[in-house]
């Protein structure tokens, strides 16, 4: 089993995410994380999926994903082939904000992005190990809430979806 990041470029149509996820469901493969957002190309969405599968499985998965009519292109990458980040938010009671917490925030290079009467929200970006480490560190400070995104990723190998689209004979 390897950890893979799949980058999928799709038309922005209703139901496309469902069509993609049922490919995983049918094969009993767990999606570890998923993010979806507009890409830099107008009307084209980029979906990033993280999963742990064998090389044989990832090849089949990506072929099946590409087979979907509204999917433009799908690529898969090993962790070494992508630059990726995950964002995490941590909510703590305002009275836990003391000198030692300030030190933790500074050490991690995390940010306080909101401060209300009752609580503060700290933001930290990194790989899962990093955000997890901060989570463990903050637990003793009476952590109220925690939220972490799936990964967003940029591939190191060069590929261009817009070029691919231009080369399609329409």
């Amino acid at each position, binding site marked *: 089993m390897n950890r893979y990041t799949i980058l999928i470029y799709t038309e922005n149509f209703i139901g496309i995410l469902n069509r993609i996820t049922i490919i995983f469901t049918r094969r009993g493969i767990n999606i570890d994380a998923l993010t979806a957002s507009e890409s830099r190309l107008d009307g084209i969405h980029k979906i990033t999926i993280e999963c742990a599968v064998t090389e044989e499985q990832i090849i089949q998965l990506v072929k099946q994903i590409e087979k979907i*009519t*509204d999917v433009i292109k799908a690529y898969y990458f090993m962790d070494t082939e992508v630059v990726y980040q995950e964002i995490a938010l941590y909510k703590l009671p305002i009275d836990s904000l003391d000198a030692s917490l300030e030190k933790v925030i500074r050490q991690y290079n995390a940010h306080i992005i909101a401060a209300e009467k009752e609580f503060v929200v700290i933001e930290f970006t990194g790989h899962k190990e990093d955000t997890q480490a901060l989570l463990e560190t903050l637990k003793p400070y009476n952590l109220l809430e925690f939220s972490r995104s799936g990964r967003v990723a940029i591939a190191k190998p060069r590929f261009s979806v817009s070029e691919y*689209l231009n080369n399609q004979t329409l």
Partner: protein
Amino acid sequence: MIRGADIVVRSLIAESVQHIFGYPGGAIMPVYDALYDYHDQIKHVLTRHEQGAIHAAQGYARVSGKVGVALATSGPGATNLITGLADAMIDSTPLVCITGQVAAHLLGSDAFQETDVVGISMPVTKWNIQVRRAEEIAPAIAKGFHIARSGRPGPVLIDITKNAQIEAGLFNYVPCLSIRSYRPHFPVDPNAIAQAAALINQAQRPYVLFGQGVIIGKAELELKAFLDKTGIPAASTLLGSGALSEDHPAYVGKLGMHGNYAPNLLTNQCDILIAIGMRFDDRVTGDLNRYAKQAKVVHLELDPAEINKNVKCEVPVLGDCRESLSLLIDAVQDNNHPEWLGRFRELELLEQESVINHDLAPTKTGLTMGEVIRYINQYKADDAILVTDVGQHQMIAWRYFNYKKSKTQVTSGGLGTMGFALPAALGAQMADYSKQVICVVGDGGIQMTIQELGTIMQTKAPVKVVLLNNNFLGMVRQWQQMFFDRRYSFTELDNPDFIKLADAYGIKAVKVEERGDLSEAVAEMLLHKGPFFLEVVVEKEDNVFPMIATGCSVEEVRLS
């Protein structure tokens, strides 16, 4: 500006649709109202169940090569299409199914006969869409037809809300020719052809497996020319039957669990395996770990996801097999393989003695399914179409029917849908009234869609129904006998009087219980102008052989 419902019908006319199969209901009523005005341009066949409608559309598509069209209402009408969609998906049958849906403002409110058919049908459609506005109807239908018939064909579902059918919109039909996110075709790589040709030219024991891709790709002549030139023994999958006339000198038989002895056994002795338009289904390969390990595999395939899916290949030849076969014909040398072909013929004799003779010319009292097919062969036209259901009769009919022309085989291959045959035969007949359509069916399967006798009655479609009645769910019973210690758990049927039933539908019916009456009855059936129902009471506990049991290797094919 015209009504959305009229846009639906005029879009279908613009796609040259001549027949549609359907069943009306609340949410599709505006379309049915529109059909009333166009009945001289589109023939609508009213089936007795939506499953009947979609199987009929499948039979129609498989015989005509055109896109089959089915129409149903929302809710239960739409969900009754699901089995047919799954069947068409796995057997690559081009369909456009149009379902009515509750009005857009009611979506998500659990309105009467509302169901999320787009969600439900997603895993079993090549593409689907919900249309909520009249002006979106024509583009959706245009896109649907393009997707259904291009590349590897498949079923498409278009769900149209009732308000979209009622509201007015501009109608300007623009056929869809391409979609930027969709690549149905790949140009054939000349290097792949060169590599494939090099392997084929050096091969001592090359072996061709051909499937339905040859029929879908209209590559029958190219396949024949390739085999004429190379003399390579060639075997057919279930759905590939008909792509090559069985009279061809290189034809060696059928593959798979109940295929022929030699084609299965010798799969593990060839040195080059050339798979053309087939997908290495588990019923063909048996245990993959012991499948053709000694061979280098060349795979001519249109769908990139099929390459290396089940069997790893040395040379993938991605693309339309008609194109790749044409290129291969020029790249391969004239050849023949008399010794290698002789091995097939030797083993064929073994199968002839231990299985085929007993099936076709039995000496025991009870009638066999095989001898019924023998008489069908004797009296049928060369281009007669065989439609089968699923089970023992399907395997026997496939094994013994004499296929001479392409598109003469309609059966549920991948999904194994019991109840498929009767409506599919009706659809096949609608595609061409001049052809003999012979529907061979078991007593289990026919009762799953027997209501379609009503559609045959109403349309007067001259379908010839041959019921092979053993009062058992025969294939399951065979497995119970072989693998479950003869514990016949819920496989014996108390059947109705089928002759009375056919008679009630006004269909001429004959029952045969004695061998002496069989020949005459089959001849009478095939000469009869209208629909005909022939029930043949066959041996209760006959088994289909050869057989590759589940988990076994192709070389473990058993003759008994």
